[in-house]
């Protein structure tokens, strides 16, 4: 199966992170084109393209932009969410490391569309070296007149500041990210108000995922119809699929949305290590419910996966072979969310902690007959009652691990 490289078209070039390389591949042409139009036309173009947010929720990008109030007296801020922390996800890492100007051009287009003059890249703290690559690319772009005042003599002013997080998964949630960027503990806010009404420093704010922003240069340059012709209806464009776990050729691959999951596993990623049998696939990062091998015959897009009872999420595909122990993975999942819960909401803090304790004792062989029922009760009764989805991101997958593989849990209790 041949990849369709739109976002990844530059990454294998020599010196791919350099401005010259980016320009020689048609870089910053889209910016020039965008600046010759009205900001509203860009919003309309993105609307026509059908672009849905690549961070996990799949919310239409143009609709999110349209929530920004018109003619508002406050500054509008644009934030690129580069806090890539969803286990199994490494696409933004590759995009920023290999092709930083793609993100910069995407931010310029988004900034122009929403009348912003200041952008931030909130990057996870562990990506210190990538933050430096971005800083260098920003300096190059500034030098060449793509950032700063009166960009390409259009009268548009825009600049970008890189802000390094410091090791916190919850900061990927947009209001926690904003709190963190304001220099506080990264604890999610009560919504509404949404960031579009009151975000960074109380100003209207758009938060877009790195990959979402990276789609914009193609959409503007090639036209929304071209983008919309890729993928399947309602799920347009290409998507970066991060394949990891027990496959022969793990990696980040670009395909149109709607690619069959089994093709990704067997053709693209070379099948399972040691020719073992497939047990299960986590399709969209650790927070998305697992698919058992017999459920894995699905298409990889927002709507098909929702219909299959799971989510595309960040498209972090984790492949599990017959050797994998589901109770062990469930325990690791519970530990992760218990570690990363910010502690603000009781259902999330206590629920993830309790799940960890129950799964630990089952795993160590001291589980009680009633423990499976206890786990299921926590997962169902504490769902949807915290400020952000972090707790649910534990409850949903753990519920599915236990429900779909209850035999493995029962075997440990007996």
């Amino acid at each position: 199966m041949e990849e369709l490289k739109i976002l990844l078209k530059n990454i294998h070039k020599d010196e791919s992170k350099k401005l010259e390389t980016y320009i020689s591949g048609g870089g910053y042409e889209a910016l020039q084109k965008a600046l010759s139009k009205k900001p509203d036309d860009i919003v309309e173009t993105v609307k026509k393209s059908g672009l849905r947010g690549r961070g996990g929720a799949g919310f239409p990008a143009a609709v999110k932009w349209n929530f920004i109030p018109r003619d508002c007296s406050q500054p509008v801020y644009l934030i690129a969410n580069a806090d890539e922390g969803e286990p199994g996800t490494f696409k933004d890492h590759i995009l920023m490391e290999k092709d930083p100007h793609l993100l910069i051009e995407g931010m310029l287009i988004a900034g122009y569309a929403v009348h912003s003059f200041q952008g931030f890249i909130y990057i996870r703290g562990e990506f210190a070296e990538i933050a430096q690559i971005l800083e260098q690319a920003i300096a190059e772009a500034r030098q060449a007149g793509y950032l700063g005042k009166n960009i390409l003599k259009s009268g548009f002013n825009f600049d970008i500041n890189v802000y390094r997080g410091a090791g916190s998964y919850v900061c990927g949630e947009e209001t926690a990210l904003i709190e963190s960027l304001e220099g506080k503990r990264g604890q999610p806010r009560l919504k509404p108000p949404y960031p579009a009404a009151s975000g960074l420093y109380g100003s209207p704010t758009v938060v877009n995922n790195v990959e979402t922003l990276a789609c914009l240069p193609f959409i503007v340059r090639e036209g929304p119809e071209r983008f919309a012709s890729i993928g399947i209806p309602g799920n347009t464009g290409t998507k970066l699929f991060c394949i990891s776990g027990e496959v022969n050729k793990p990696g980040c691959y670009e395909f149109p949305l709607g690619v069959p999951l089994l093709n990704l596993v067997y053709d693209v990623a070379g099948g399972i290590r040691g020719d073992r049998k497939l047990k299960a696939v986590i399709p969209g990062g650790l927070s998305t419910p697992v698919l058992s091998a017999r459920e894995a015959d699905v298409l990889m897009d927002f709507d098909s996966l929702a219909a299959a009872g799971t989510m595309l999420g960040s498209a972090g595909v984790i492949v599990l072979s017959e050797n994998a122990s589901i109770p062990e993975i469930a325990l690791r999942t519970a530990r992760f969310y218990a570690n990363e819960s910010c502690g603000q909401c009781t259902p999330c803090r206590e629920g993830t902690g309790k799940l960890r304790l129950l799964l630990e004792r089952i795993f160590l062989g001291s589980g009680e007959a009633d423990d499976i029922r206890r786990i299921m009760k926590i997962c169902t009764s504490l769902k949807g009652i915290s400020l952000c989805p972090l707790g649910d991101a534990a409850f949903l997958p753990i519920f599915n691990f236990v429900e779909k593989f209850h035999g493995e849990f029962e075997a440990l209790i007996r």
Partner: protein
Amino acid sequence: MLSIKQKDDIRKKAKEFPGHRSVSLPALYIAQSGKGYIDRKDIEEIAGILSISYAELYGIASFYNLIHRKPIGKFHIQVCTNISCSLLGAEHLLTRLEKKLGIREGGATADGIFSLESVECLGSCDKAPVMMINEKFHEALTEKKLSRILASLKEKAE
């Protein structure tokens, strides 16, 4: 205690943000850039520069995993033990490291050269198992590769 240069760097950095409080994370990074961690005095001094309370800044410092409030080794080893790395033997590598360094996860060697910590997903799962030493990623680890990395670091430390 912060050096004069660190204080200047913090004040300079604060000007980059529309809200000066945003500098609290960069300031904590600047403060720990010297000795690898921050102490009570550092927090007091930064809080003074930012005009916020000690308690509030301590709350911020304690929220983030990469802000260290106790000494770490000259080489701080962070091993990812999340699912994709675990499936490919991360726990085994962590045990090997504990044995080779003679310390437990969360500890540091007596000479202050190495400290070891297991961490959550580092976002490099296609090259699992993965670890970070200070700010550098080490990927597709095997036992052999691990021994080589440790040997070269020990050499550097001498």
